[in-house]
C-alpha cells in the first residue's frame, strides 16, 4: 500500500488553506510513523481552474484520494484528524 497520493485543492493561500495544509501534513506524518507512505500534492485551483472543473470541486480546501477506489473526498480545514482519516478510508471507523 505504498505510493498513495492525496491531492489537496486550495483556492489561493488563504488562512483556511494554510490550516488544511498543516493538518494534512500532520496526518500524513502520523501515518508515516505507522509505516504508511502517503504523498501530498497541493493544487491551487486559482492557477489551474480546469482541474477544479474536472474534479467538480465546489468548496475548498478539499482533499481527494483517487486510489485505491472508491474515490474519497474530504472538505474543510481538516481540523479533526480522526474524521479525515475515516473520510479518506485510511483508518477503520
Amino acid at each position, binding site marked *: 500500500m505504498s505510493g498513495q497520493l492525496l491531492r489537496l*485543492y486550495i*483556492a*489561493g493561500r*488563504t*488562512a*483556511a*488553506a494554510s*490550516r*488544511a495544509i498543516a*493538518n494534512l501534513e500532520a496526518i500524513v506524518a502520523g501515518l508515516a510513523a505507522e509505516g504508511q507512505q502517503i504523498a501530498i500534492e497541493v493544487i491551487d*485551483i*486559482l492557477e489551474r*481552474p*480546469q482541474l*477544479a*472543473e474536472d474534479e*467538480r*470541486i*465546489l*468548496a*475548498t*480546501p*478539499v482533499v481527494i484520494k483517487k486510489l485505491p477506489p472508491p474515490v*474519497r*473526498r*474530504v*472538505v*474543510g*480545514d*481538516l*481540523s*479533526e484528524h480522526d*474524521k*479525515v482519516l*475515516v*473520510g*479518506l478510508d485510511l483508518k477503520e471507523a
Partner: protein
Amino acid sequence: MSAETHREGATIEHRPDVAPTGIAGLDRILRGGVPAGRPTLLRGAAGTGKTVIALTFLCHGIAAGEPGVLVTFDESPEALLAHAEGFGFPARRHVAEGRLRILDMRPDRNEVQVGETIELTVILARIAHALEGLAATRLVIDAIDGIEATFASYPSLRSELARVFDWIRERRVTCLITTGERGEFSTRYGLEDYVADCVIALRQEVTNRVMTRVLRVVKRRGGAHETNEYPFLLDAGGLFLVPVTGAELTAKVSDRRLSTGIPGLDAMLGGDGPYRGSTVLLSGQAGTGKTSLACSLVRAACEAGLAVLYISFEESIDELTRNQRVLGLDLARYRRDGHEAAGPEDHQDDHRDDHPKDGLVLRPVRAVELGLEEHLMRVMRLIGEYRPDLVVLDPISSLAGRGHDPAAKETLLRLLHLLKAEGVTLIATELLSDDGGGVSHLDVSSMIDVWIRLRRHENDGEINRLITVVKARGLPISNQVKEFRISGAGLAIEEPYLGTGGIAYGTARLARAAEDEAELEQLDQELERARHARDQLTEVTAAAARLARIEEEAKGAELDRRIAQIEQRLAQIARARAAVSRGRE
C-alpha cells in the same frame, strides 16, 4: 415561442442596456429584456418554469451570437441538455461548437465535511474560467439555493455566499440566477434586495383543481416594467406569456371585404360580406349551422388566397372534415398542414418561414381539463405560430361561455384585442343555450363588428334555420330575418315568404305559397270569366247597335221615300194647278 421571438425582434427596439430573454411576452413586460451586464433573480417554487426561462434566455442569446455558461446546482448537465433539446434548442450543437458550457456544480453527497471553514472561491474560479474560455456574455446559475443545504453546517457559508454574489455583481455579465422559495433563500442572502437588479417571481396556484402559473416582475432597478401578475403557459412548446396588457386599439383598418361564400349572406351584409380584419360572431343554438357557416367563410378566404387557422374545440379535425364534405365542402383541399399530428411541433426558428403563408391549418384544442386561461393562451400561441389572416374559433363559448371566471374573460378580451391589433379577421361561433332566448353570454359584444345570429324556427312539425344580421359595423345591412338552408348542395339563403298571412319559412312558406297559387288560379279563372262576359257584352252591344243602325237606315229610307212621294205629289198638284190657270186665260 420561436414565432413570437421573430415578431418581437422587429417591434422591440434594440437597446444596449437590456438583454432580450427570447420570450416575447416577458421581454415586453420587461420593456426589452433583463438588464444587460447585471444579475437578475428568478425565483419560484419547484416546477414553476424557472429552468425553462433560463434555458430560453441562454439559447436565445447563443443564437444571437452571445455565448453562454450554465451553472447547475440541481439538475445534471445531461438532463438540462435534453430539456433544452426538448424545447427545440440545439443545445448539444452549441456545446460541441463551444458556444455553450455547462458547469456541473451538483454537490457530491459522499464528500465528508471536516472542520469549521470552507471557501467557495473555487465556484468563482470555475465560472470565470468558463466565461473567459467561451468569451461568454450570458450566465445562468440554476438552483443556487441547492448549495445551502450541502454546506449548511459551516458557519462560514453565509459570508462565502455573500462573496460569490458580490463577485457576480462585479463581474458585469448578464446573469440569471434561479432559486426556489425554500426558506426565503433569496431574501436571507440579500439576493433580492442587494444583488439582483431585476427580480422576477413565478408562482403557481390551483383553483377549482386547475393550475395556473403566473409571473410578476417584482423589481427592476433603473428601468420601467409592468407590475401586474401575468398568467403564462408552460409545456412542451416552451413558455408562453400573454404579452398584451391594456393594448390600444390600433387595428389596421381595411376597406377590403371578405365574401362569406354565400351570395345571399353577402347581400345581407351590404353586398360583399364583412370587412377584412373584423371580428365576426356567429351565435346560435345547437344545430343551427354555425360551423357550416364558418366553414363556408373558410373556403371563401382560402379561395381568396388568405392564410386560415381553424381551431376546433369540440369536433375533431376528422369529424369536421367529414361533416363538411357531406355538405359539399372539401376542407382538405385547402389544408397546408397535411395530416401531421396535432399539438406543438418543432419550434426551431429556422423552419418557421419555410411554411407557405396561405392555406388552411386545422388545429384541435380539446383538453377540457385545462383552465380557461391556459386554453386561451394555447390559442394565442397557435396564432403567433401560424400568423393567419383569418382565425376561426369554434366555438368561442368553450373559452368563456360559462362566464364564472373573470380572468378568463379578461384573457378572451386580450385575445380579441390582439387579433384586432394584428388585423386578423376572427370568425367565432357561439353556442347559445336553448332556453336562453337567444341571448349571448359572452359579454364581449362591444368587441364584435359583425354579429350574425342563427336560430331554429319550429312550425308545423319541422325546424327551419333562420339567419339575422344583428349588427355589422360600417355596413348597410339587411334587417330581415331570412331562411338559411343547409343541404348537400351547400348553404344558401332563401327569401322568406312575405305575404298577407305574415312571414313564413320552410314548408310553411311553401304551403303559404301553394295557397296563394290556388287563389291566383281561382282569380285567373274569374278574370277569364269576367273578361269573357265583358267581351260578350261588347259583342251584344255592337250587334244591337248594328241592328239599330240597320233599322234606322231602313226607317230613314222609308221616310226618304215618303218625302219623295209627297214632294212628287205636291209637284203633280202644282203642275195641275198651273195647267188650269193657263186654260182660264
